[in-house]
């Protein structure tokens, strides 16, 4: 009986144990959190309560170091496992001795060891294609501190996710994960060292000890990469320097700490654990170049001699100097490989430049002059140009987008401070960075998106008000925010678009559209002017067409020149566009005036018999020369005004899409333009003369009004003309196609142009018809009293006005 009972008991016990669920596995990050936080609790207890309570926390931390966490470290990172166990023992000894410094250092050691172990396990899992394990261990890591331009990296997370989905291979994913983690740990290493220094200055030995120990642990993660680059001997030297740093911090020995710190700095000089890809390096190089170039520009606006006049501009100069320094820091290693001496000089130059502009931010007088700042910048630029590889000298869109964002941030800051003049200046600068940077290429890939970005910067798009309107209305920062967010989104889309490869068909189509759109405007002007040249006056078409041909030729020359001069041309692009536009308008105004008078005037002079031949001869001799020059100039400016801008757009497109595709698109666009031109000229010949005149007059007026609107808008972009927005909702395409923009200046100029055109017509009417009619009436009224006198010339008949000399006797 007893035996049976024992047997039953055994069976029941066995079943119960088998039925009890197994202890749930503790995720690595959970175990780490428990260990780390219990150790910190111990540190806190040494502050708040006593060592007894702290000891309990350390015991709990030691107990938590087990399970999967420890097993994985033992397998993949045995050195990290040993370091972790050592750290926990030290922690226990530290609380027993009520030694907060030793406890803090032990915690720093432990964190370094566990992150190092996690790094090894994560990579091993990725290389083995085990995405699930990798994802679990990836939660046990450090991140870069977030700043405006450096969010915590997500590349590793993304790579592991892609690995899980089979969208990438283990070796590819491992490369990305390794790069992300090394970058983060190197950033954190710098931060731990800075923390240690700051803590030492404040006399916080415990904090210094923890940070120094953690820094040594972080270096251990980078050590393999360090050895790859510098060799085993240098690795040993660097490791030893970190060990001395840690020991000095724990011993609270300031002198030893300073000496070890100098050795650590020397060891890390120029070392980048996660080297940039060639594209990343080129981007940083362009950022350095662009930021550096802007330092004297902003500084010059903010000083007068040695006196600060505009603090806002100085702050911008400081921001750009800091940006240049940061970019240089990332490239220093690669530059030093090429030319160590020049790199040292650049480093010294940048540090001095930054110090100078910062001083101007702290004191209003006795600051460096703009010439001094410019000279220093020029020297650094020359050194960079001599040291950069060729690939780093090519302009990239990414640095342009960075500059746009920095400048928009400045704009928002100015709005927040109620400084709307400065905000407007910043807005125009941001627009200039866009206009002469990414826009040219973006036009070729996505013209609609280009319009949206422009609209958001100016007068509205995507359902939001434009920044120009908001600044003019003195909107608050809160009101500006939605537009800024929409603009950030649009710029992000633009950056993504430019980063993607685009189909050949899209490039050809977009190039054709650009050429056709720009060409259409020129055709309209030429058709309007040449329409009236029929019959004997037909030859007067020639100077116009010659001018047009010259305009085409100059455009082609510009294309060739742009291959090498694109940067210079782009820099002055909008100003040049504005100047050419003004010339075109001036010539068109003259021709319009001449046109109306010529059409009606010729008949009027026919009454002067004695003088007619001479005048006509003089007309053909003198006026023809002036006329020919004017018509030629009109033809040239009409075509070149469009040609210049088109060349720049197509150049940018060619850089990314290749010459053949762009030339195909250009040819297609030109063909379409030519077709429209032929149709227009054919239509002119078919129209009844009077109707054709009316159509011509209207066309000239329309072209003039459109040209005036666009040119004034361009001049607003260069800052030559102010911007006073109208509270009217005008779609952005109206501006692009009709030159209609919602500002007082553009609309006002167009109204003035229309008044001129209409005024010219009525003036011509007055001179040709009404005044002679009045005179004829007066003469008729006086006729009975003067019988026998020669009757006055008959009033010219309407509808038979001499054109092109047809009415000449």
């Amino acid at each position: 009986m007893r035996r049976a009972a024992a047997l039953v008991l055994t069976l029941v016990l066995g079943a119960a144990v088998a039925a009890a669920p197994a202890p749930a596995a503790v995720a690595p990050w959970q175990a780490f959190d428990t260990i780390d936080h219990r150790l910190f609790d111990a540190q806190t207890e040494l502050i708040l309560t006593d060592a007894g309570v702290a000891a309990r926390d350390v015991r709990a931390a030691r107990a938590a170091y087990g399970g999967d966490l420890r097993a994985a470290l033992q397998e993949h990172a045995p050195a990290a496992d040993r370091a972790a166990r050592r750290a926990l023992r030290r922690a226990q000894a530290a609380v027993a001795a009520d030694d907060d410094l030793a406890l803090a250092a032990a915690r720093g050691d432990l964190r370094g060891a566990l992150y190092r172990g996690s790094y090894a396990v994560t990579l091993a899992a990725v290389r083995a294609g085990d995405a699930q394990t990798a994802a679990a261990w990836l939660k046990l890591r450090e991140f870069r501190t977030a700043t405006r331009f450096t969010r915590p990296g997500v590349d590793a997370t993304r790579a592991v996710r892609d690995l899980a989905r089979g969208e990438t291979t283990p070796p590819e994913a491992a490369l990305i994960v390794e790069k992300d983690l090394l970058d983060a740990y190197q950033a954190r290493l710098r931060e731990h060292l800075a923390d240690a220094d700051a803590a030492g200055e404040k006399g916080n030995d415990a904090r210094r000890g923890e940070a120094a120990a953690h820094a040594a642990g972080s270096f251990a993660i980078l050590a393999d990469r360090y050895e790859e680059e510098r060799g085993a001997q240098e690795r040993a030297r660097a490791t030893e320097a970190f060990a001395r740093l840690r020991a000095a911090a724990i011993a609270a020995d300031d002198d030893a700490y300073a000496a070890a710190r100098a050795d650590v700095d020397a060891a890390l000089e120029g070392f980048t654990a996660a080297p940039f890809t060639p594209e990343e390096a080129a981007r940083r190089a362009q950022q350095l170049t662009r930021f550096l170039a802007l330092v004297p520009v902003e500084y010059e606006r903010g000083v007068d001699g040695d006196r600060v006049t505009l603090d806002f501009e100085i702050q911008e100069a400081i921001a750009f100097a800091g940006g240049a320094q940061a970019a240089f820091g990332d490239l220093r290693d690669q530059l030093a490989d090429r030319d160590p001496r020049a790199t040292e000089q650049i480093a010294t130059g940048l540090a001095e430049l930054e110090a100078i502009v910062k001083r101007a931010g702290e004191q209003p007088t006795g600051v460096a002059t703009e010439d001094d700042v410019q000279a220093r910048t020029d020297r650094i630029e020359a050194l960079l140009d001599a040291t950069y590889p060729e690939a780093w000298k090519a302009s990239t869109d990414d640095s342009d987008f960075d500059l746009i964002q920095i400048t928009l941030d400045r704009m928002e800051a100015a709005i927040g401070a109620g400084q709307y003049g400065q905000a407007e200046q910043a807005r125009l600068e941001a627009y200039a960075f866009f206009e002469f940077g990414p826009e040219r290429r973006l036009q070729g890939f996505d013209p609609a998106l280009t319009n949206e970005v422009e609209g958001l910067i100016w007068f509205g798009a995507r359902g939001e008000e434009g920044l120009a309107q908001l600044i003019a209305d003195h909107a608050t920062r809160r009101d500006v925010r939605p537009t800024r967010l929409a603009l950030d989104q649009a710029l992000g889309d633009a950056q993504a678009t430019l980063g993607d490869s685009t189909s050949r068909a899209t490039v050809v189509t977009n190039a054709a559209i650009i050429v056709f759109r720009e060409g259409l405007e020129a055709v309209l002007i030429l058709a309007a002017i040449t329409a009236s040249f029929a019959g004997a006056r037909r030859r007067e078409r020639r100077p116009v067409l010659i001018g047009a041909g010259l305009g085409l030729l100059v455009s082609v020359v510009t294309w060739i020149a742009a291959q090498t001069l694109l940067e210079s041309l782009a820099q002055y692009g909008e100003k040049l566009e504005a100047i050419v536009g003004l010339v075109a308008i001036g010539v068109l105004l003259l021709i319009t005036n001449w046109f109306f008078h010529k059409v009606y005037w010729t008949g009027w002079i026919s009454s002067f018999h004695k003088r007619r031949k001479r005048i006509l001869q003089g007309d053909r001799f003198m006026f023809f020369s002036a006329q020919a020059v004017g018509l030629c100039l009109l033809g040239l400016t009409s075509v070149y005004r469009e040609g210049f801008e088109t060349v720049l757009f197509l150049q940018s497109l060619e850089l990314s899409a290749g010459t053949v595709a762009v030339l195909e698109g250009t040819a297609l666009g030109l063909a379409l333009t030519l077709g429209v031109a032929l149709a227009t000229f054919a239509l002119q010949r078919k129209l009844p003369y009077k109707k054709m005149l009316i159509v011509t007059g209207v066309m000239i007026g329309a072209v003039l009004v459109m040209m005036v609107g666009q040119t004034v808008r361009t001049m607003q972009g260069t800052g030559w003309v102010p911007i006073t927005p109208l509270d009217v909702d005008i779609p952005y395409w109206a501006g692009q196609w009709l030159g209609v923009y919602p500002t007082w200046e553009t609309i006002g100029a167009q109204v003035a142009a229309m008044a001129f055109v209409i005024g010219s017509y009525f003036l011509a009417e007055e001179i040709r018809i009404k005044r002679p009619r009045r005179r004829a009436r007066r003469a008729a009224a006086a006729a009975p009293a003067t019988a026998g006198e020669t009757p006055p010339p008959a009033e010219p008949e309407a509808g038979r006005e001499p054109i092109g000399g047809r009415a000449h006797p």
Partner: protein
Amino acid sequence: MPRTALLALLACVALVAGCGGEDDDGATSAATATTAAAEADLGAIKEYLLEHADRLVAETESLQRDAEAYHALAERYDFDYARMLADDREQVTQLIDRMQRTFQAANPAYEEMEGVVAGVPALADYDVQIDAGADGSDPENAVAFTIETPAGRTFEQPGNFFFLAETSLWGTEERFVAEGVEPDLDGDGEVTFGEALPDADFLVAVARDFHATAQDLREDAEAWEPNEADALTALVVMTPTMSEYFAAWKNSRAIAGEDATESGFVAASRLQDIADILGGLVLVYDNVRPLIAQADEAQAQQTGRSLQELHDFAARLRDEEADGKRFTAQDADTLGSEAQDRAEAIAGQITQAAEQLGIELQA
């Protein structure tokens, strides 16, 4: 006896079998997550925001009422504060005391929602005006407004509203207090901390504008359409601001005493602010957690736990300080650094979550 022992043993076995394994957040939460909704409850975040905005409006209205009464009283005495205090001590003291208490109620009303207000781009400007903005000496972070007093004085970009009200009510900023009078409110011949006579002309102008701004915030909060990007951005942006909050705590009266370089945070310790802000962020996170869990349950657990622990950490320090514990500047450095480390880890985790959800974090 053996039968009894057998029964007892069986009972123990049954008990052990029923208990299961180690209590593990992962296992229980995993089971819970399968039934949890996979959407963020953004409505709860908005409700939280509106409730706190209502409180702030009510408190600032009360502050304005008392500031108007204080101004009227001072005006009766032709702004001769010494005479006012001598002749009407009781009323003056009551008004000051009431306004100080109103301030102490208004502060958490805002701080508890600051995480949302400051973290959401559409509302962030209010944080500048109400709590975070500097004065004109820091143009990039300065408030945009100017205070215009009934007497016609103007104070351009003077600093944020909480700073203005607090330093005036507690007398820690000379520019904002009555001149030519010792603020010995209780008449005991000694001026102790908390005894102050604000400049009535200045205070009433601040109170009016503060109330108007609170009303604007309430209106815009009502109009705000919360989205997932807003919520995650608020968490990423606000959580890592721990170091500056702890730095303000270190420089405040609570740590530095009479050597304090920070004239604010005298009415309420910065630790209270920190705990309140984190409490708000915990609420925000709790409401977006189901969304994150949808993409990565383990990540959702990790971040939730980290954020709660950070909040508990700050709350514990607050409670210890309120119980009389005096922290040194070194303690504040150590504790602040730890909080910052944890906060940055949380920000990093949420960034990963946003990536997995395909949500773009805003500026």
